[in-house]
């Protein structure tokens, strides 16, 4: 992460209402040059609305937003010349080929990269004459990233770039995003995959109901809430939660995704007393394991809900 000079995005007190619904309700943040910044949150959290205001697609009701030092309300055209945009839904002229679409989009900008370079960058060399309607989901997503890069932008917005992709396609997209950062681009992305945020983002903002709940590096967010690691296991029958909470080192006991999770500051002590208790009740804890707290835990702790509910 290299943050230097003026931030590429500066947002302050941003609000956007749809009727009575506060889609974005007082959001403030900055993104530094060269940074990959992620907005993590469930559907309807206001991530897309925020990113679309920055892209010049929507006007905010209140607050200010600057992209590359320009006010989004006053200079949308100059901003659009310098940013790259990938929208949530991948939809393009279905009957145009990869090459035709890249040529076409290039013509919208004052400066644009050679089409072949873009095709190579997203590894679509063998599909360049295919119509976009005939591409696989991962290929379409790569094309839409290539389209976001036609003008060699300083800042790229990616709205849920990997939603709906299989794990392999997701990995190849992550490599693309890492490549962008290596070439000095700033990236702002939204996602509801905590793994993606952990893998890609220098900093993350957790968003829910139009608010940013927490912001920082993934490690900061986890350490801010969980100084401990977690012991997890499946049990049947269920062990009594009140007794689990009193085991050695346990800070908090919780049920998450059908598993019992014990957040602990003393893992060996917790496991020792857990096994003793299970033994005395003749219960066998299956799939016992230890892990670090994750962004998912952070989100659950912040909102009381799992991220993908």
């Amino acid at each position, binding site marked *: 992460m290299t943050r230097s000079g003026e931030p590429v995005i500066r947002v302050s007190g941003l609000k956007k209402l749809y009727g009575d619904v506060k889609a974005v309700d007082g959001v403030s943040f900055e993104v530094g040059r060269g940074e990959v910044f992620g907005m993590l949150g469930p559907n309807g959290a206001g991530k897309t609305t925020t990113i679309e205001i920055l*892209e*010049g*697609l929507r006007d905010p009701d209140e607050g200010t937003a600057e992209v590359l030092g320009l006010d989004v309300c006053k200079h949308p*055209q100059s901003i*659009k*010349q310098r940013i790259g*945009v990938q*929208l*949530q*839904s991948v*939809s*393009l*002229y*279905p*009957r*145009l080929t990869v090459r*035709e679409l890249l*040529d*076409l*989009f290039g*013509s*919208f*900008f*004052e400066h644009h990269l050679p089409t072949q370079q873009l095709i190579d960058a997203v590894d679509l060399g063998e599909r360049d004459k295919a*119509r976009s309607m005939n591409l696989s989901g991962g290929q379409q997503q790569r094309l839409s990233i290539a*389209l976001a890069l036609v003008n060699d932008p300083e800042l790229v917005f990616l709205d849920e770039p990997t939603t709906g992709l299989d794990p392999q396609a997701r990995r190849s997209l992550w490599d693309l995003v890492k490549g962008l950062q290596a070439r000095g681009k700033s990236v702002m992305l939204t996602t509801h995959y905590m793994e993606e945020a952990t893998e890609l983002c220098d900093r993350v903002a957790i968003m829910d109901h139009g608010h940013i709940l927490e912001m920082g590096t993934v490690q900061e967010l986890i350490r801010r809430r969980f100084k401990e690691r977690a012991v997890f296991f499946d049990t049947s029958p269920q062990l009594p939660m009140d007794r689990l909470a009193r085991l050695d080192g346990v800070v908090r006991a919780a049920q998450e995704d059908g598993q019992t999770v014990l957040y602990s500051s003393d893992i060996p002590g917790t496991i020792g007393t857990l096994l003793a208790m299970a033994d005395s009740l003749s219960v066998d804890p299956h799939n016992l394991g230890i892990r670090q707290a994750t962004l998912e835990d952070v989100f659950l702790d912040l909102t009381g809900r799992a991220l993908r509910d």
Partner: protein
Amino acid sequence: MKTMLRLTVANVKSLTRDRAALFWTFVFPIMFVFLFGAIFGGSGTTKISVGFVDEDNTPASAAISQAFGQVEFLTLKTGSLEDLKDSMQHGDVAAIIVVPKGAMTALAAKTPLGLQIYTDPSKSQTTQVIDGVVVQIVNHINLGLAGGSEVVTVDRRTLQAQPLTAIGYLVPSILAMALMQLGVFAAIPLVQQREKGILKRLGATPLARWQLVGSNILERLIVAVLNAVLIIGIGVLVFKVTIIGNLLAVAALVILGAAAFLAIGFALASFLKTEDQASGVVQVVQIPMMFLSGIFFSFEFLPDFLQTIARFLPLTYLADALRQVMVDGTQVAPLGVDVLILTAWLVVCLSVAARSFRWE
């Protein structure tokens, strides 16, 4: 401007790669031309019925009648001018030849005698044949009777036959229909592009709205001109329809008509959310319009209240204007009024579209 042209090319490419769209845009109207041409066009091999009115009733007029009777491909029907005009309007006879009263006296005195012929300008093929025959016979009579001096002359008159019988009437109608559909149907891809987020994606580039709208209009106008060329071309080459008007005026009307219906299509697209909705509403707009605007049968056959409705429909005026310019048919309104009404539709719908069009 260059960007707009690039986008227009992209739109045209998209259209040419979409077989269903190609069919509805180009093949469907041509099918109409062939269908109606087959029904009403008539074939060249059968005899042509010609009305013959003998107002003179003298041996001289009988001789003229005989001269026409000897022409192999003509069938003469005699009767009063009134009755025969009626027959002609119903398509039973293709032309009427009148030998006026006093023909024998005139011939004897070698004073000029005008032989009247009524023909239908929208049936150019028959008209030319009959004209040729009449001129030949008249020359023959002149030669025999008057040693070559022009005693008998041809007094040409026109009578517009009942429209349904003439493919010439239908070609401008089908053209008007095609332009109407082209414009109104433009709502569908637009709603589709919005629903799929293509418009939104374009909105995230520096592309200006006028470039986007302009490219859509340009694409459709290109298609409109192609359509007009195809329909008129087939009418002229296959069904021998004569276009009497000036082609520039036809082109101007094609563009005005296409633009007016495009504006209607864009205005519709502003209010429609989904592609399914759009396909339904477009049909609700275009099918009644097709039948109420007198494009396939004359307007006057409609009951009064439907005529009133038809008087508000833009298609009525586009078809009327094209007919007047192309084949000089009976008119619903003067050409200037047609143009004015189409322009009014264009302006109103365009401002509605500009005000309420949504990009997502």
